[in-house]
């Protein structure tokens, strides 16, 4: 079985990328974005994925069921900028088979 899923990611310039992401490498959405260099290094994943900087904020466009927000993510989003109702931190979304077809848009750099 192919452990990859397809993700549709719109970068900060508005360009849509349809990419493959592995579900067996313990990756999260922020790391997938970094591995494809969809946002410049140093502008995403600054804290390394601890939900402590919000540089990986994204807007979820499809109606996939995502893991519930933890307290750290909620608190960080409460202090982030450009937050919308569909905002999530990419580093808190593990890549699982259920997310096949997920559509997200990266939030502006802040």
């Amino acid at each position, binding site marked *: 079985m192919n452990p990859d899923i397809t993700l549709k990611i719109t970068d900060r310039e508005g360009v849509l990328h349809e990419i493959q992401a592995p579900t067996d490498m313990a990756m999260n959405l922020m790391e997938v974005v970094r591995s494809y260099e969809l946002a410049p290094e140093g502008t995403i994943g600054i804290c390394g994925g601890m939900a402590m*900087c919000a540089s990986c904020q994204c807007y979820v466009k499809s109606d996939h069921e995502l893991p519930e927000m933890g307290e750290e993510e*909620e608190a960080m989003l*409460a*202090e982030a900028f450009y937050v919308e109702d569909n905002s999530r931190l990419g580093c808190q979304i593990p890549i699982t088979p259920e997310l096949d077809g997920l559509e997200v848009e990266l939030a502006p750099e802040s």
Partner: protein
Amino acid sequence: MIKTDILIIGAGPTGLFTVFEAGLLKLRCHLIDALPQQGGQCSEIYPKKPIYDIPAYPEILAGDLTDKLMEQIKQFEPGFTLGERADTIDKQEDGTFIVTTNKGTKHHAPVVAIAGGLGSFEPRKPPIPNIADFEDKGVEYIIRDPELYRDKKVVISGGGDSALDWSIFLTDVASSVTLIHRRNEFRGALDSVDKVQELKDEGKLTLITPAEVKGIVGGDKVTGVEVHKKDEEPFIIETDHFIPLFGLSPKLGPIADWGLEIEKNAIKVNNALDYQTNIPGIYAIGDVNTYPGKLKLILCGFHEATLMCQSAFQRIFPDKKYVMKYTTVGGVDGFDGTRKEAPKAVIKSIN
């Protein structure tokens, strides 16, 4: 003018360990950091988080790693310029450098080692369209002198420790304090949250949640802020100062204009040799540099710092012979007169 052998930009783990490796070569170091304390990201972003890949430490808190590094380098008496950002660099005719901070402090050294991590930590500025017009005219992102707020009306926004702590502190200084946060929950230390609750109940502090400041009103200076609450008409609160406290985020900043080759927000260096940049005498080590295969790990920064110091030594003393010595063999001679050494073996004959 501060004079040293190796001027280190950035007092994170890589910068701090450089002091040790330089000290073994009898080179003195001085460090500049925009933050008011040592440790870089380790102390600013995640002091209470564990790190598992520091060799020989199965687990160590980032804050403890900083403390241990400070202890390890103590005998080499590093100098520190903290709370100032390295802004400009000027190469002298003799090949040495003068680095000047945003506060005008000048540092002179034959070698500059940039260990700047992801850059200098700058306050995160909320995206309020006209906020830049009011900077230092009532909008402050950092509280430098609390006396500025004596008998003034103050609005603070944010939900972390600094927003809570300053709100508490300023109730005794300002004529009024209003704290605005996007949620009802705060993520600061429990004591601080309780104290804010108490001050609110006593009427000494106004709390507006969940709400957001989305505009600033005023002419030459701030006279009020526009507050948005969900399902309510925006309203104006009169104030003399607006202090958004949303934490800090690192920006490469002025270093990007030093004429160094930059790639992916990092400084290109020679990984095959000594981590020197395209400008001889300026090195870049740790998270701030890039080369094929680069990994932004503390342990890689330590390695890079070690090789860099050897090259710096040769640059400063081109004719001096030197071979690397194990600390177990050579001991550690501090600039403070202390000496650490392995205990001598006891030799005794058996009759």
